[in-house]
């Protein structure tokens, strides 16, 4: 068999299988009993949503042990599956709560490059200023070109003060400076935006460690929230991201961005199971209103594709 014909057939098969699977689980079960094949296809749907092979097979196993009626309706099976996932996610759905006793409430955002940290900071700023709080933005991303300018645009949009330094300046000292300034001018919420860093880069993670250390010099309780921003299109690497960032910074929760695309962000289920790490909010669009609290049940429904039906 020539390699070319195989490749072209593979491609053809791909388009077929993916279009079939995008139709959702519902198609899998319509008018059929819950046999081994159906369970396998449900498992595959979960894998396609990035739950990862082990989490998916665990859920599938639970599903196969459950005795359904002989001619169970597909929707009922999906509801049951949704319930299983909700059970995993419910305990970790924790909104980001503003604490007025902290002056200021310091929120540090961290994450890999391109996950959406600056946009998330901008959205958070807008939400807080809308509630009449005095917000300050600290551009501790002193590496990426125009990171400061990007944050300044958000500062203008939300009428927040932006503290920045020139490119290449020490991020930790900027964070320090911003806290001092925030304390003196009565800022209620201080959002510190850091540079994107891959979690396997020792020197960059050491820099983050230093930022946290320096923040704690001023306020041992700070940062009051340390948010890891995670791109929903990320696959199983998210597990390594959480693991490494947790080692370096006191991560209090996740914000999952870009959930408005075709990516389902199912790796969250694996994360919830493994780390019990809270999920604060999800980003579902470019405007500030699109940063929404994380709802375990809604999220579970979208993972199994139930929301299309109901």
């Amino acid at each position, binding site marked *: 068999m020539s390699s070319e014909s195989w490749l072209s057939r593979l491609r053809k098969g791909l388009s077929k299988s993916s279009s079939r699977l995008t139709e959702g689980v519902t198609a899998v079960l319509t008018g059929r009993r819950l046999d081994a094949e159906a369970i396998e296809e449900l498992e*595959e749907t979960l894998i396609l949503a990035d739950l990862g092979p082990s989490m998916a097979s665990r859920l599938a196993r639970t599903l196969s042990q459950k005795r359904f009626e002989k001619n169970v309706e597909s929707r009922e099976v999906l509801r049951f599956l949704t319930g299983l996932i909700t059970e995993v996610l419910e305990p970790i759905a924790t909104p980001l709560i503003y604490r007025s006793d902290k002056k200021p409430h310091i929120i540090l955002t961290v994450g890999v490059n391109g996950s959406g940290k600056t946009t998330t900071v901008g959205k958070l700023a807008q939400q807080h200023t809308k509630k009449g709080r005095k917000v300050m933005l600290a551009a501790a991303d002193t590496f990426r070109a125009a990171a400061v300018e990007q944050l300044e645009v958000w500062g203008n949009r939300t009428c927040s003060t932006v503290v920045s330094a020139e490119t290449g300046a020490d991020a930790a000292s900027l964070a320090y400076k911003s806290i001092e300034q925030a304390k003196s001018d009565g800022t209620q919420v201080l959002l510190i935006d850091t540079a994107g860093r891959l979690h396997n880069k020792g020197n960059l993670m050491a820099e983050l460690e230093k930022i946290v250390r320096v923040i704690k010099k001023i306020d041992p309780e700070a940062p009051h929230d340390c948010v890891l921003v995670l791109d929903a299109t990320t696959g199983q690497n998210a597990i390594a991201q959480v693991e490494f960032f947790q080692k370096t910074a006191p991560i209090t929760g996740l914000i999952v961005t870009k959930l408005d695309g075709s990516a389902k962000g199912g790796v969250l289920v694996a994360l919830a199971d493994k780390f019990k790490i809270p999920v604060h909010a999800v980003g579902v669009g470019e405007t500030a209103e699109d940063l929404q609290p994380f709802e375990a049940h809604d999220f579970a429904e979208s993972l199994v594709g139930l929301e299309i039906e109901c």
Partner: protein
Amino acid sequence: MFDSLSGRLNEVFEGLKRRGTLKENDVDLALRDVRIALLEADVALPVARDLIKKVKSEAVGEKVLKSVTPGQMVIKVVHDALVEILGSDDIKLQIPLNPPGAYLMVGLQGSGKTTTSAKISQYLIEKENQKVLMASLDVARPAAQEQLKILGEQAGITTLPIIEGQPPIEITKRAMQAGSLGGYDAVMLDTAGRLAIDEALMAELAAIYAQVKPIETLLIADAMTGQDAVNTAEQFKQRLDLTGIILTRVDGDSRGGAALSMRATTGCPIKLIGTGEKLDAIENFHPERIAGRILGMGDVVSLVERVNESVEEEEAERLAAKAKKGQMDFNDMADQLRQVTNMGGLSGLMGMLPGVGKMKKQMTEANVDEKMILHQQAIIQSMTSRERLKPKLIQASRKRRIAAGSGTTVQEVNKLLKQLTTLNKMMKKMGKMGNKGLSRHGLSGLGMPGFPPGFGGV
């Protein structure tokens, strides 16, 4: 991961080998482990499924069953299949024939388009001697145009002056005009990140594409992408005629299954990979490396070597059995000589052996040179096949013929004959002592025919 995967596979196949027959179910069981490894590496499910189907037929084949380490052999089969999908001859970036040629950079938000635009521009300038103009069409993300401008300033690459409020299609027009007026070879167009399902933005992209007819339309994709890689790549491919994929953040620790998914879905080659934050951190794509990462192997080269080693192990075992009886012939000797040359000749081989520094000096004094092996090979090649099997046939007139045929002397032919006899005698002796050390030490245990008498059996 690799060790555990191959370990598990070895176990499965060991059990099966003892039974003698391999059933489809058994192979399925073994391939399940491979499938999980692929899915953990974020290879898209349909791609993983088809790959497994393809390797299955090979996995039940003789090659695997007869192998000393079937688990590793299965991985090699999978690995080769991965490389086959990932690989491509057409990996170089197109260089504009009718300047200015446009390079269109597209992708999701945060995939690394702006940084990559600057990286590729610098690559074109330095490696291909192109005059490049960069322009950002990203009016959505705050300060995105600013970012490209600053990167341009850092690297000394010209960027199109920013005009506030100009829509992307107008910027494109202006960029192409500036490109031809300024005598640029290439115009790098950095577009705004967009979701593949965003109809309005995708239509805008299609319009830009139609306007400039780029020579390269590159999808910039994050190596950490999960199952969605297939959807994204497919949808971009539907709207634009993608010519290649650039994988970014390969310096992270993701297993990079997205590369395979996108390559398989779109058929577009992966042209370059981003391996760091600095502008020169862009490299050519090596399919074997990504294939190795997908399988969770640290270094694939070592695996392939290991497999090859095991093949030679079998060979060595066969030889050892023969040697034990003192029945080595010139075919065996030729094999050994070939192995020596494969390993980089005598000096290369000597360099690999510990504690031979002193001997090396002695050898130089004894005039042992690289040509000696060539001469010995030539002598063996000048023999008939019967002579190689039965060295005793070689008497005076045959010796003269062989010497003339190989361009050597009768003395040298004699020397080689004597070496074989000595070797066989020695082997017979050692065989009586037990052959444990023989197969393990392979070549060195068998004595090196390339060495003058006295050096054999070092």
